[in-house]
């Protein structure tokens, strides 16, 4: 078999996190009873007109800034005309000639830069619901008019792994910047993949095949692998790859032809006369740029550089926005990054059961208070765990609870040492026995100290003190 190079380009759609739809004031919300988030505009009623949602434009600009794009001064919306029952107006409002964002791209961990061609704003279509034979197919327009951004890459990826990493980075940025939730299982992020192969050393790209209907990261990888093999087989057998659009079937694990280039649709794009061109003033762009949160790549630098965390710990924190944000909040309150990440890893993560909703049920303030009390030896290791569990269950103040439940030692270290020294000088016999049978004598010492301190001593501290002193 000859040596082939793979060329991959992605077109990634993500639903924007706006309250309302792109061109009307209906709720932008997943699910709901069919056709309940609808109005004359988004069901394409005769006479209805679109009005652009400014928030959607802002979020698109924000996405562009996260990916290093240039933002156009003037954005134009165009009509993409085609017939399908889920498309209420028989055209989709999209952008062709003047999208909101141009160029930009994302750097992979290897240092390779994957260029973007553009990011544009458009509206989503409704959904067909196939019922029984007698009922037939029904249409739910709840999703119709939901704002989507389409991020189009240049054909810069050369393996499924690179494609996945690129996709992952886009997704991370969108989530971290609060632009989109990218819930793949709800169709919040979808992907079309363009794949071609060519013999190593060949200058021109091979014939490109587009694959649609890819709804998970895993499917992206499988679809690309399948397509690369399919094209290799064709070339190895002396055939030529046909330029076409194929539909990926994730259940069957294979793709099938949808249409060839000859049957490709003519969308008859033209500027939407109902929507005036949108002017994007520079100062608005700069304002959005200033308000951008730290993106994963920047956080990574900070965690490993400034905080000295390991790559493992850093990746763990960055694996979910909630972890990273929680960590950042904790560090602001108590500047011991390493202790905090240890607690997050060992305690917090073990209590997060729900894979969907990664909810941290303890406040940053409580967690840092617990860590601080422990590190100041004001509470025992064991009490710190109990306190953590308590704070996870209920919204209480960790310090107050530690005090009221007697976990918190109110003795100063000096006072406690004085008392412990008293116990030693008052009990020479026990001190002698301790050298041979420490386990038997220790409870006696602890008991004595507790008696003198009315139970306010930290048994851990006491144990440690006697062990070291009488060694």
């Amino acid at each position, binding site marked *: 078999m000859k040596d082939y190079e793979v060329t991959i380009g992605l077109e990634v759609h993500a639903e924007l996190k706006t309250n309302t739809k792109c061109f009307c004031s209906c709720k932008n919300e997943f699910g709901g009873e069919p056709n309940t988030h609808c109005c004359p505009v988004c069901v*394409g009623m*005769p006479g209805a*007109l679109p*009005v652009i949602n400014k928030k959607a434009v802002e979020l698109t600009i924000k996405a562009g800034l996260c990916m290093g794009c240039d933002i156009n001064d003037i954005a134009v919306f165009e009509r993409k005309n085609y017939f399908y*029952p889920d498309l209420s107006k028989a*055209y989709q409002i999209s952008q062709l000639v003047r999208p909101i964002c141009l160029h930009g791209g994302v750097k992979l961990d290897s240092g390779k830069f994957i260029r973007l061609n553009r990011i544009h704003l458009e509206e989503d279509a409704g959904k067909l619901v196939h019922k029984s034979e007698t009922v037939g197919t029904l249409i739910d327009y709840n999703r119709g008019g939901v704002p989507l951004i389409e991020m189009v890459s240049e054909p810069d990826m050369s393996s499924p792994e690179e494609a996945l990493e690129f996709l992952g980075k886009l997704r991370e940025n969108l989530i971290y910047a609060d632009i989109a939730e990218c819930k793949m299982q709800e169709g919040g992020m979808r992907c079309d993949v363009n794949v071609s192969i060519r013999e190593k050393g060949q200058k021109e790209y091979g014939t490109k095949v587009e694959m649609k209907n890819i709804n998970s990261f895993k499917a992206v990888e499988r679809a690309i692998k399948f397509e690369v093999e399919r094209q290799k087989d064709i070339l190895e057998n002396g055939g030529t790859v046909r330029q076409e659009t194929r539909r990926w079937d994730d259940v069957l694990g294979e793709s099938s032809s949808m249409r060839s280039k000859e049957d490709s649709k003519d969308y008859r794009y033209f500027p939407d006369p*109902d929507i005036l061109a949108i002017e994007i003033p520079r100062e608005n762009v700069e304002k959005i740029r200033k308000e951008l949160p730290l993106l994963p790549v920047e956080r990574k630098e900070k965690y490993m550089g400034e905080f000295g965390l390991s790559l493992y710990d850093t990746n763990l924190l960055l694996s979910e926005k909630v972890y990273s944000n929680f960590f950042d909040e904790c560090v602001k309150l108590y500047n011991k990054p390493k202790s905090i990440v240890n607690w997050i890893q060992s305690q917090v993560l073990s209590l997060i059961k729900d894979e969907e909703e990664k909810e941290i049920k303890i406040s940053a303030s409580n967690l840092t208070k617990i860590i601080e009390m422990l590190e100041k030896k004001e509470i025992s290791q064991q009490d710190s765990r109990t306190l953590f569990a308590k704070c996870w269950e209920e919204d209480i103040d960790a310090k107050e609870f530690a005090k009221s439940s007697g976990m918190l030692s109110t003795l100063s270290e000096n006072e406690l040492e004085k008392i412990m020294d008293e116990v030693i000088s008052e009990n020479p016999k026990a001190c002698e026995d301790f050298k041979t049978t420490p386990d038997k004598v220790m409870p006696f010492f602890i008991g004595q100290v507790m008696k003198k301190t009315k139970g306010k001593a930290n048994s851990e501290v006491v144990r440690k003190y006697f062990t070291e002193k009488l060694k």
Partner: protein
Amino acid sequence: MYLTKLGVLETAKLIHEKKVSCEEVVKAYLKNIEARKSLNAVIEVFEDALSEAKKVDEKIKNNEPLKELEGVPMIIKDNILIKGKKAGCASKFMQNFVAPYDATVIKKLRDAGVIFLGRANMDEFAMGSSTEKSCYGICHNALDESRVPGGSSGGSASAVAANLACATLGSDTGGSIRQPASYNGVYGIKPTYGRVSRFGLIAFASSLDQIGPLTKNLEDSAKLLEIISGKDSNDMTSSKEKVEDFSKFDMKKTYKFGICDEVEEKMKNIVTKPVYDSIMKRLEEKGCEFVHFSIKDFNLCLPIYYVLSTAEATSNLGRFDGVKYTVRSANAKDVNEIYLKSRSEGFGEEVKRRILLGSYVLSSGYFDAYYNKAKKLQQRLTKQLTEVFNSCDAVLLPTTPNVAFKIGSKGDNPVDMYLEDIFTTIANITGVPAISIPCGKGENDLPLGLQVLTNKFEEKKLYSVASYIDALLKGENA
């Protein structure tokens, strides 16, 4: 029946001064509609019109505060949505569609107290100049039933001329208010693009469409336009430009009028020329000046219009697909057949012709040659025309080359019909306001119209100039 001869403001005054009840007014109009049924101008009379009239009388009886046009009956073109009423663009494809919301203009008229009497006949989807292409049948000219009322707002114009309502609303994409107004001897204005919200107007060509009133006099036209104008948060193309008191006409002694060389050239071969010449003479005698100017691209108006309007129409009419709102073909077996058969059976010939033309000009490979070129020419033409207004108050030109033509006389060649628009499309393409006022009689004593154009958003000036000419023609300010 003197009652039904009255316009909007006069009728409102009579009702509000309790000289006549609203019920009497509405009954008189309903009687006229019945008497002139053969016109086929009104395709549906609303059942609740009379009960609405009684409510107004009740209010008057109880001395409740009245709105400006409380109790004034109007008829609305069949492409403007009135909540709960059918709206179908006179298309059999849309005959079952009931509007789920009020168009912005309807909301505004409702808020002003207007009563809606019924729906006016029109050319299917506003495509035509004769109102012969309606699924409800041919509409007739109110002054000569053997002739067309013009179109596409033929029903609206015929209804005003035959006194079937105080006034009507029409829509104008290439002349669809002004040409029928001219043919029926009434007043019809196409406002500045963006002056009136298009929300709730079933779109033909979104960048050219405007709604406007057809009336028995100028004062009514100005008042109704004042009411329906203004920025609408539901229509991004509606303008924030201030809505002035259009109905307070400035009274100037003379005006400076612009006359386009290319229009003069065309008029050389037109039989109605003497009528217009005599108007110019009378204006000159009053001391008005004339500025002659050339608009080199004037002859490109029709091609520009037909490229842009059909391109937009083909996209706007995509939603009528047999899947929803429209009548689904009984013969459709799958989704492709729903589209193909429903649209083939549902749309009339003229609509299909324009959908095809529009698809062609937008198709890949032809887009630059047609659509983009037309857009560029549109900009050039707009610049040429708007510069003219630096040296004159208003431009004058005929509304149509001749009086209303005979029904069926322009059936064979669609281009003959398209030539009806040679004087009207320029206002749509350039976005400026244009009014047609009755200005004399042509062949068989049938009315002719004169168009007055001003610069964008100069409706106040437009009405002042129009009232000056109107009074002169009526011999009032001799």
